[in-house]
């Protein structure tokens, strides 16, 4: 992969399983960049969670998700944008508790998407306003 960043742009509708189109595109790009097999899976999971969040929570009118991939020499960046209602501040700062606790209180059923994304990626940045949400992610190549 050359030093100049390569840009790939993808727009998908908010429709069941469309997140797989985003995940597969991401996986091809990550493979082209010689990411390892485990990292490719991590990238796919992160993008799936970002897309599912937009499907489930954004309530956007255009029902579209815009994804921009930037392929750098040593990292893959992607930004996932919806034009929906945004994330409420108390959710973003973690002060609102999500999901009702089940039998085992540490087995929370909801509020896990962002946690997964953060744990799998190197940098996660969320910009959200009543006009929409952009989740920006960086995944560095190991080694």
């Amino acid at each position: 992969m050359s030093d100049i960043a390569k840009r790939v742009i993808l727009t998908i509708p908010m429709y069941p399983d469309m997140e797989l189109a985003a995940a597969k595109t991401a996986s091809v790009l990550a493979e082209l960049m010689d990411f390892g097999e485990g990292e490719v899976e991590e990238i796919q999971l992160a993008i799936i969670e970002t897309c599912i969040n937009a499907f489930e929570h954004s309530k956007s009118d255009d029902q579209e998700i815009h994804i921009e991939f930037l392929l750098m020499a040593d990292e893959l960046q992607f930004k996932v944008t919806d034009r929906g209602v945004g994330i409420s501040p108390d959710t973003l700062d973690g002060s609102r508790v999500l999901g009702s606790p089940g039998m085992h209180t540490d087995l929370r059923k909801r509020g896990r998407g962002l946690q997964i994304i953060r744990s799998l990626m190197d940098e996660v940045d969320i910009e959200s306003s009543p006009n929409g949400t952009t989740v920006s992610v960086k995944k560095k190549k190991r080694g």
Partner: protein
Amino acid sequence: MNKFDIQIREDGEHAVIETAGYLNDALGEQLAEKAKELIGNGYTQLVINLEKTTLINSIGISILIEIIEALHEQEGALNFCGLSATQERTFRMMALAKYAGIFPDEESAIANL
């Protein structure tokens, strides 16, 4: 994509559920239904084999948590096998590993029920 690819193997004492493909809400609901059926038929010792399950999203994970809780209500147990390294890490992070076993293959998952 999802042909609701679920295989069940029962052998009196325990049952194995094997899923294939993308474990999302749709496949997860099918999986939960099969698990409920098995529990209804008296199977409280279950193995879920995820060998052929390429991707699991967070909705799939919540459904797995529901199955764990349903089994615990019956004093049963669940072991997983066939997880990728990333899936195993995610299960540990989400505390699933505290309430269900994780084993490399079906044999050891069954043996350790």
